[in-house]
């Protein structure tokens, strides 16, 4: 359980005058569910964006599965085995649920122009396999019956599930979920929790940003807390919950109080 999968080393990111991330270091172990929490604007989503290559960090680096991650090239980061979902759902709205998941399989398919012009049996076989796997993935998250529905017509909870399915289709080692329970009711949250546990059980490490503290504390093996771009705590949930700095950040008078 204690093999390091991802190591963030002093990650910094500024936007103009705002220090979104200030030398954030953390270590995620293979097979765990790792929670990243903090008040609004603490830098959680910035951390995701830097990790997945959407932004280039101003300082620091990520070591993933033993080697450094490229920065600023999202598709290469995905190829290395990190997939993500979004706080505000970003599906391909004009595609069916099935096609969304198949788009996630992009890395594993031959999509060059020549490959298609010289289409042969091997390619058709590959496409058939990808379709089959996409169905499997939809079944895995429990929305197989909506395979041919346009994703924008799915219910909110199902759209969230579809995002997870699409991310899993890239065959990640690390799945980064950005507030997956946002806007869900209690039943949906309970189902989501089961799903995340299943994903971990099937060998994918999970990094979870979440506002729902109850969900985080119940689900995560370890939790890091960000406040104003700095990591103020990192430990098992029971310890973090009692940490004075954390209570201060969430409940107290903010940054300057003691």
């Amino acid at each position, binding site marked *: 359980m204690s093999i390091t999968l991802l190591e963030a080393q002093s990650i910094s990111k500024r936007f103009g005058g705002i220090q979104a991330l200030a030398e954030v270091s953390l270590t995620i172990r293979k097979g765990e569910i790792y929670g990243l929490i903090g008040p609004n604007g603490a830098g959680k989503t910035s951390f995701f964006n830097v990790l997945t290559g959407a932004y280039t960090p101003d300082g620091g680096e990520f070591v993933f599965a033993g080697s450094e991650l490229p920065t600023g090239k999202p*598709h290469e980061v995905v190829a290395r085995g990190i997939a993500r979902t979004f706080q505000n759902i970003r599906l391909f709205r004009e595609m069916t649920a099935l096609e969304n998941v198949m*788009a996630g399989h992009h890395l594993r398919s031959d999509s060059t122009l020549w490959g298609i012009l010289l289409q042969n049996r091997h390619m058709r076989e590959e496409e058939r396999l990808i379709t089959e796997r996409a169905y499997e993935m939809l079944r895995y998250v429990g929305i197989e019956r909506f395979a041919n529905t346009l994703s924008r017509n799915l219910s909110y909870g199902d759209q969230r599930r579809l995002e997870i399915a699409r991310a899993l289709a890239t065959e990640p080692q690390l799945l980064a979920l950005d507030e997956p329970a946002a806007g869900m009711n209690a039943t949906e949250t309970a189902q989501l929790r089961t799903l995340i546990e299943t994903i971990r059980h099937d060998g994918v490490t999970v990094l979870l940003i979440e506002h729902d503290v109850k969900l985080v504390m119940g689900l995560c093996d370890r939790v890091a807390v960000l406040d104003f771009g700095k990591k103020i705590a990192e430990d098992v949930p029971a310890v973090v919950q009692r940490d004075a700095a954390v209570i201060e950040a969430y409940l107290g008078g903010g940054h300057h109080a003691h």
Partner: protein
Amino acid sequence: MENLLQQIVNGLVVGSVYALVALGYTMVYGILGLINFAHGDVLMVGALVALQVATLLHKFWPGLHPLLILAISLGVAIPVCMLLGYVMERTAYRRLRNAPRLAPLITAIGVSFLLQTVAMIIWGRNYHSFPPLFPTIPLEPFPGVFITPVQVTILVASATLMVALIMLVNRTPLGRAMRATAENHRVASLMGVDTNKIISTTFILGSGLAAVAGVMHASNYGVAHYSMGFLPGLKAFTAAVLGGIGNLGGAMVGGIVLGLVETIGAGYIEQLSFGLLNSSYQDIFAFVILGIVLIFRPTGLLGERVSDRA
């Protein structure tokens, strides 16, 4: 009645050339939100390169079968235009991807001037007659209605290419990646799609279609020259907007509708205007129709598809 049928045949031919060019406009717009005004000039380059190759073949290989000449000319013109499309995107547009919208638009107009000027330097300012590569005896499918073998070929070839493109976009991994990129670059790249590659491929595909359209256009009218791309380019852009820009089906419908309206209009404009205007005013129809459609359906006949640039 024969007159009307004849105009419909001509309209379909002209329209399918517009449609092929409109597809290039619409694909690029769908994926980048860019109106590539140089696209019409790619058509010109295609036509002139094919003309050059055909002329050379005529000179050094006099007995060669015309259809073989056509095949070889296309075989050179298509890759040349594809390369041109790639270079255009790579050098002129990629750096401006996150610039304000006006910058790439003005650049596109600049690229258009550049291509025309270079073509003028290479091929001169004169009209070149495009060698007749097909038998010139027209067929007469209905009494009084004529269609040339070139026109038949244009109809068949453009229909085939359009079906192929629709299949490519809807049924292949590349097409899926193109649609994903068109909807949202950032999310597509976070799902493992190399969006730069997809954008290049889009330009390459569109330019290949423009090359074919260029050869068709030049064969149909029998001439080629350095500024021949301007008007069909403008019309094809109109067709793309008419059908709903960003929408592949829309480009096809828009192209055909525009071709029909224009030729039928040209056929009847004298009667309609009581002898005041003659058929050289046919372009009026294209733009009047565009105006009317945009007033009542601002997103075009089939609806606009714009990339979600979140």
